[in-house]
């Protein structure tokens, strides 16, 4: 695990231009490698069919709302100011260079020259201003992007290619924030259109552009023939993508999606089921494993209400369940057990295995100590006539079946020490509703953000204050002044070593308080057919880019 990377001042000249494939593939870690990609000469042409298991986005502009399915598709036609290299370092992309003032309140970004949006508009500082304003406009209803640029007060266009961002407080996570598709840069001219038009056909600078969107059927992407690769690739003959286009489909049934891949009807699928991944190689299918950055996949324990307002009860629950066996059997070895708040791709992730080992004896002792010493006829613990009962709303949109099965196993294991766990499978709206009403003791909510600053979003006490819609990100309801201070300081410091240390202290507080049961990285598995080559490049949030991809003709 790396903990030493630097992210602050980067200049375009400060690193050699790596091959684009290698550069971007950096985020993609293990998994099956694409062995044929090197041996085959790229061929231009063909339309790739992509099948997503996610719900169809209601808007193709990731500024609006801002979830991972939007990022997956938008990565093909939108680009960000920054991205990550294979070492996990933030590097400029649409930006050429950037610097920050001494007080950390002024961020200057210089843009590359000669880059055009697909509607012909030139990429200028005004565009950056328009994009930040679009994100901050309440009518856009941006969620993820809005938080990411939360400290940017305004943007000034110093000259055509120089944008100056004025911040309310120092923010050393800003470049990470600006590397995400949710803050990707769109054509200012296109942003002036009304929202529904922009949702249907956002205009960016990416290797593809949106040709049409047939609701429920497909988003049709075609090659951007005027694409300018911001970072040159010596290995490539052309500057444009090999594929003529991508048909981006939505096939929510996992079995159907896999069957379609097997029969060659589609070329790439996402949200691949662990069991199919484990046998993919035997079927000649390629596999891309790209764990998402930001937080790990974890269960949060609501510490604001009984029984989890008692740390002993929280620890008892965590000790009662056995995540290791479940993770290995349900995920078929496609993911490793995590003992960290952060994704394994985050260099600053802090991990502590001993906190999460299963120990039912200890769990029983802790519960007895906490006063839950009696049991009712069904074997559940009781205190003051109240059953030790936990509500666990599970979002069917966000938790894949294997995860739901894992939760069922926890339910059974927790029962053995006297917890009653009530799992409610809910659609997204009801799930958010249950959270907003605080009708939960346990919850698993994914959150993707580049960099450790995600910790502030998830565990700062400010995040317990609900937005007008009732949404709050701090589901564990951690309210710790010391932690708040650490998280703010970590985000404002200029010193990387100090930053790392502050984040480690912060993570320790959360982990040792048993607010969270980490499970594994946020899974992001793709399977692709034999005929597909050149898959591996990803954005900073691990969403694949099919710029280098080509098909057998």
């Amino acid at each position, binding site marked *: 695990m790396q903990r030493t990377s630097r992210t602050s001042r980067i200049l375009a000249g400060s690193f050699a231009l790596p091959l684009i494939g290698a550069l971007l593939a950096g985020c993609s870690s293990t998994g099956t490698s694409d062995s044929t990609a090197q041996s085959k000469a790229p061929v231009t042409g063909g339309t790739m069919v992509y099948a997503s298991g996610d719900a169809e986005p209601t808007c193709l502009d990731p500024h609006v709302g801002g979830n991972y399915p939007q990022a997956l598709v938008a990565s093909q036609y939108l680009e960000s100011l920054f991205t990550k290299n294979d070492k996990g370092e933030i590097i400029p992309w649409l930006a050429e260079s950037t610097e920050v003032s001494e007080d950390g309140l002024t961020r200057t970004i210089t843009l590359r020259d000669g880059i055009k949006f697909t509607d012909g508009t030139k990429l200028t500082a005004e565009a950056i201003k328009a994009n930040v304003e679009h994100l901050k406009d309440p009518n856009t209803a941006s969620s993820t992007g809005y938080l990411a640029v939360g400290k940017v007060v305004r943007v000034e266009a110093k000259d055509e290619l120089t944008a100056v961002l004025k911040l309310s407080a120092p923010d050393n996570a800003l470049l990470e924030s600006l590397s995400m598709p949710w803050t990707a840069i769109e054509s200012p001219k296109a942003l002036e259109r009304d929202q529904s038009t922009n949702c249907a056909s956002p205009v960016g600078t990416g290797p593809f552009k949106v040709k049409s969107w047939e609701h429920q059927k497909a988003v049709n992407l075609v090659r951007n023939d005027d694409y300018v690769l911001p970072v040159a690739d010596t290995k490539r003959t052309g500057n444009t993508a090999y594929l003529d286009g991508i048909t981006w489909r939505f096939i929510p*049934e*996992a*079995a159907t999606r*896999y*069957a379609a891949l097997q029969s060659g009807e589609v070329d790439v699928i996402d949200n691949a*089921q662990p*069991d*199919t991944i484990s*046998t993919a190689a035997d079927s000649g299918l390629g596999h891309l494993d790209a764990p998402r950055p930001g937080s790990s996949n974890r269960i949060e324990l609501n510490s604001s209400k009984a029984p989890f307002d008692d740390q002993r009860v929280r620890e008892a629950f965590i000790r009662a369940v*056995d995540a290791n*066996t*479940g993770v290995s*059997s*349900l995920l078929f070895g496609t993911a490793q057990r995590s003992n960290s708040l952060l994704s394994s791709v985050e260099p600053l992730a802090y991990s502590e295995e001993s906190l999460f080992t299963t120990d039912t004896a200890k769990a029983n002792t802790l519960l007895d100590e906490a006063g839950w010493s009696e049991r009712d006829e069904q074997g559940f613990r009781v205190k003051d006539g109240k059953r030790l009962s936990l509500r666990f709303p599970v979002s*069917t949109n966000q938790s894949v*079946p*294997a995860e*739901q*099965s894992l939760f*069922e*196993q926890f*339910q*059974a*294991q927790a029962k053995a020490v006297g917890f009653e766990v*009530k*799992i*409610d*499978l*809910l*659609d997204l709206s*009801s799930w958010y509703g249950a959270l907003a009403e605080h009708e939960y003791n346990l919850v698993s909510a994914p959150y993707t953000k580049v960099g450790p600053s995600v910790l502030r979003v998830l565990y700062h006490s400010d995040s317990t204050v609900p937005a007008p819609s009732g949404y709050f990100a701090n589901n564990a309801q951690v309210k710790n002044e010391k932690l708040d201070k650490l998280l703010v300081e970590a985000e404002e410091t200029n010193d990387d070593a100090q930053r790392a240390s502050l984040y480690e202290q912060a993570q320790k507080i959360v982990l040792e308080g048993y607010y969270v049961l980490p499970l594994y990285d946020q899974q992001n598995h793709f399977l692709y057919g034999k005929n597909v080559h050149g898959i591996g490049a990803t954005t900073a949030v691990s969403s694949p880019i099919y710029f280098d991809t080509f098909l057998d003709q």
Partner: protein
Amino acid sequence: MSRSAKIFSAIVILLWLVMALAPGLLAPGDPLAINPAQAFQKPGLAHFFGTDESGRDIYTRVIHGAGDSLAIGLAATALGMGLAIVLGTVAALSPRWLDEVILRVLEALYAIPSLLMALLIIAFTGPGVGPAIVAVGLSTAPGYARLVRSQIRSLKNSEMLEATTVLGHSSWLKVRNHLIPNALKPLMALVTLGIGQAVIWAAALSFLGLGTAPPAPEWGAMLSAGRVYLHLAWWMSLFPGLAIVAVAVSATVIGRALGGKVKSL
């Protein structure tokens, strides 16, 4: 009802009753007991129907699921039938304008596809067994109600009832002795047919993730869990599916033996 149909019905009803009331007789295990290390075992002597993703024994779960699935089917049919008897009887015995109003209401209920109705109900109650029962019950009610109405209307004007009028029997005795029992008789056949359909509908809702909460061994929910592993563990979806089909088939056979016609569903 032929002799063989009688025997068949008796055996099937007995079997379902045992499964529903004393599942432990056929499957002594705990349907909720997990064993992650024994996940995805093929059907065999140790596990007749194999195991699921958490190592639970599918045979045990299918047997223990009978109670829930049948209870849902029964409750939904009872609800639909209760509503239908009230609406149908009122419509049949009312003056023409009220009959027309009730008919329109029934038609409106009929005009909304059942699953849409279920989704609407679930949208404001949230998923669960109760809403699923209400949804299935409500969407089957109009069909039953029409039958009750036409049944009572034809009985009301039948020679049978006229004959008792001529014999001087009071209105109340006519209703009690002849109208109600004779109107209910074909409904009984229909109820058995309906239970089979209600089990399927409830399973469909569970399949869409809107019915019974996991890990209860409800067949629809088991099927829903199994379809993810269709390529790895076919047995996870095969056996619950067969159980649903078996209930619906035996309900149909018994219903038909009792003289029920699909027509009226």
